[in-house]
């Protein structure tokens, strides 16, 4: 990583469908991955719905882009913070989310979980440590 490396966080606050913010946020993440920054994603409020498993958009004529989240590991995007309170407020648990993983090159490609369940307070601290927060 070069001296230009910054800590980038993409903050996802909205439901995956209904508005285009989630999809166009993901487009920034994918393009941004080529810039080799220290990237993380955060899912808060209705944003937690973006990574709920079993999404089906067949009836609403929208592209189901949720499989793209599974590919983030291949783009070396391996830190996905999910806010515990946001899940609880919506009656969701970790089991309702997709199992998102990445392979650790330094540990013989061991499969590791990308999702990090954090409290609101913990996430605030993680955000404080960022250089750039893209809010979507």
């Amino acid at each position, binding site marked *: 990583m070069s001296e*230009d490396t*910054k800590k*980038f966080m993409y903050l996802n606050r909205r439901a995956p469908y209904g508005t*285009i*913010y989630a999809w*166009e946020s993901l*487009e*920034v993440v994918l*393009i*941004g991955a*080529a*810039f080799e*920054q220290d990237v993380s994603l955060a899912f808060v409020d209705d944003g937690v719905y973006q990574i709920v498993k079993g999404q089906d958009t067949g009836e609403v004529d929208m592209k189901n882009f949720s499989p793209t989240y599974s590919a983030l590991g291949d783009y070396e995007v391996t830190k996905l913070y999910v806010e515990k309170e946001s899940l609880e407020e919506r009656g969701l648990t970790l089991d309702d989310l997709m199992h998102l993983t990445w392979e650790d090159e330094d540990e013989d490609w061991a499969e590791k979980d990308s999702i990090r369940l954090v409290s609101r307070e913990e996430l605030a601290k993680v955000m404080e440590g960022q250089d*750039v*927060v*893209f*809010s*979507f």
Partner: protein
Amino acid sequence: MKFSIQINEGPYQHQAADSAYLFTKAALEKGHEIFRVFFYHDGVGNSTRLTTPPQDDRNIVKRWAELGEQYSLDLVVCVAAAQRRGIVDDGEAQRNGKDATNIDPHFRISGLGQLIEAAVQSDRLVVFGD
């Protein structure tokens, strides 16, 4: 300080477009540098020269164009977002076989990499949106 600005909402519909302009103008007047202004989501609508607001209202596109002219601002419109929403320059019209253009010449259409680069190069990225 070196700022970059990201605008996520369209003109007139949402105050974000106004706030971004007012912030940018104030920063420039205070002697700060604006590395780039990046228009994303419906924010790309801030770049069409075909807007015709009522005469007693502000002209948001013209306002950006004039500020851009005065300070040589790099006003960048995201290509993917622009294509979805019908914001077209000569190059895009040619590539996609469109019969017209609508972008104001003070803006340019480019890729999302420009947003990432702006965030890397600037001291602060300020996002205006909903």
